[in-house]
């Protein structure tokens, strides 16, 4: 069987616009990808009969058979390592890590091979594979179920790292990730799995771009994954207090959309970066640095960060103290040297 990847058309099915959860959108993206390309295979722990612990692969084995969606032995390094071999031999594996902390046994495969094979072979071998990872907290999960490890992956050259925050992006970005010739770490904010939105299956995403989630003129809030709705909530409150907050959903952590972000911050002159992960040596820190470098002359105030603490993720009963909320974002916005400040620092 020879498989051509060049003519994958994302709208091969009848395009539809429906309201659905992010979980359903991801499920639909996987189903449509399997339907459209015989090279796509989905595998991981509990993805078959159970349909995944978050039901993202629900019904795929039933509909497409064991060859296209199957349970593996319980071994993350095995899952990612065999996906590398499959991708070298004409397949497009889409693998699931059950929780992002449980992807760590596969870290060596990801960093030493997934990220580097294309470069090592001077482009002779490309790895079209996707590693899906439910990520983040906010669900009352016990330890190892709420980590945000995107910084490890974003730090690793050769990996595309994306994190959708809406059902539409979940669908379009997963289709784009599967169609990508390069390996993609696909981070799914598990707190948002059950949030609903419109999904137009004919919309194609371009990985590497950010999205303006809310227009605003006074300050730009840059957020991703589960922090996007929190930033939007802060913007709403700020609006009621007379401040116009622009919210950008960064959504592509690597590569980063410098173009859109730089233009946005230059226009507002103020920026706050919001992320759930610990702030030290983080994606939020990188974004902050890039904005400083590119927008310094336009800034009215230092770029601020609102992130998780530099501690292990909190146990369920303390997680509300840990997770950045709208108040914390508003406090950061308040500190941005406003002209009407009585005591501008």
């Amino acid at each position, binding site marked *: 069987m020879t498989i051509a990847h060049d003519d994958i058309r994302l709208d091969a099915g009848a395009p539809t616009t429906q309201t659905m959860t992010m979980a359903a959108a991801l499920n639909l993206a996987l189903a449509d990808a399997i339907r459209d390309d015989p090279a796509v295979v989905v595998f991981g*722990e*509990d993805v*078959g*009969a*159970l*349909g995944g*612990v978050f039901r993202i692969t629900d019904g795929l084995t039933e509909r497409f058979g064991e060859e296209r969606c199957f*349970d*593996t*032995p*319980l*071994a*993350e*390094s*095995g899952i990612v390592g065999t996906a590398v071999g499959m991708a070298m031999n004409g397949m497009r594996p889409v693998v699931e890590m059950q929780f992002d*902390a*449980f992807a*760590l*046994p596969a870290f060596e495969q990801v960093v030493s091979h997934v990220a580097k094979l294309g470069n090592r072979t001077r482009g002779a071998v490309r790895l079209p594979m996707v590693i899906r990872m439910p990520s983040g907290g906010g669900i*009352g*999960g*016990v*330890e*190892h*179920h709420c980590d945000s490890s995107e910084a490890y992956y974003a730090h690793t050259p050769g990996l595309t790292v994306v994190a959708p925050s809406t059902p539409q992006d979940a669908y379009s970005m997963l289709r784009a990730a599967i169609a990508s010739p390069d390996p993609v770490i696909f981070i799914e904010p598990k707190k948002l799995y059950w949030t609903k939105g419109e999904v137009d299956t004919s919309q194609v995403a371009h990985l590497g771009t950010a999205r303006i989630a809310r227009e605003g003129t006074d300050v730009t809030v840059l957020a991703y994954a589960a922090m996007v709705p929190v930033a939007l909530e802060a913007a709403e*409150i700020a609006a009621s207090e007379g401040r116009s907050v622009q919210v950008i959903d960064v959504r592509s952590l690597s590569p980063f959309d410098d173009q859109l972000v730089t233009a946005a911050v230059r226009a507002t002159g103020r920026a706050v970066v919001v992320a759930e992960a610990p702030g*030290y040596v983080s994606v939020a820190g990188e974004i902050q640095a890039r904005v400083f470098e590119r927008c310094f002359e336009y800034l009215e105030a230092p770029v601020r960060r609102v992130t998780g*603490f*530099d*501690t*292990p993720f*909190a*146990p*369920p*009963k*303390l997680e509300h*103290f*840990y997770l950045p909320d*709208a*108040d*914390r974002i*508003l*406090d950061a916005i308040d500190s941005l040297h406003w002209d009407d400040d009585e005591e501008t620092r």
Partner: protein
Amino acid sequence: MSDRVLTPETLLPRDEPVRLIAPDGTAEADQHYPMPDLAHLRDAYRALVEGRRINDQASALVRQGRLAVYPSSHGQEACQVAASLVLGERDWLFPTYRDSVAVIGRGVNPADAMVLLAGDWHSGYDPTEHRVAPQATPLATQLLHAVGFAQAAKYRGEDTVVLALCGDGATSEGDFHEALNFAAVFAIPVVFFVQNNEFAISVPLSRQSAAPSLAHKAVGYGIPGQRVDGNDVAAVLSVLGDAVDRARAGEGPSLIEAHTYRMQAHTNADDDTRYRERAEVQAWIERDPLTRIRAYLTAHDALDTATEDRIAADAERIAADLRAALNADTDLDPEDLFRFVTTDRTPQLDEQWQMLRDEIARGAASDAVSPTGGSR
């Protein structure tokens, strides 16, 4: 190490799991593994009844929202009980999330064993006090810790034996392989005890291994493997006890596989009707570890109604204490988030705690003004 010759034949497990008591309670003599005496078995029975009660109480507390999650060992209590009873006071246990009953068997207060699952903190007991490592969630990782711990004991001239627990699914992880190999190469006094309960969440054993049994894996590392009926507490006590004795005598590690069954869903968050037939679950009720040992003890006049009533009443009291402890409102201190990250708290974390403390204070102040308002 003794100079016992290790041939594949001496390392291989039996074709059939070791069993000393049949499901109907009748004894089955075994040439190699002696039947534990009646007093010992009555202690085991007591622990089984208490373990079952704790499992079912914890599951009920999940339904009432008092525990975040509970991976129950209902049906696996013979393994849990034996794992704690075969260890001496100075020995160590390295358990998983499913082994709360074994942890409690080592003397940890049930409410302390539930701290992780209640969501208060990541572990609720001091491992050094009861010689129980924190319950591990990342699969198979604790097996390597167990090996290193036992290796240190060996260097330090202590006769500690370490019992390391894991499930059938965890045997597929690389860490399982590495742990067994290290233990074998360095002849470490550690016993690997796999509770094969047939499922890793939804994935059946057939998707984990094509080996004749999990215990057969031992021969590949050069260590003895044995299989035991995991619902026969007498057999588990005898087989595990033998492995612990050999480890203590300097004869190195072994791998014991208990054949048992996870009677309930993986956790309360799981729906096991999606991947297994009810009839399969029902069939295991007949092999319940409690009814089996109870029938045996009763037939041997080692358990009368008065004793049974006393055991049941004690189990009720343990359950009541657990309920009371988990129904009480715990006073959690957010500063704990920052206290233990490193031995000395960094200035960076001091600053972050200061920020959180200000937020909490402002929240309290604005709540006092308007009960519905946030901190703004």
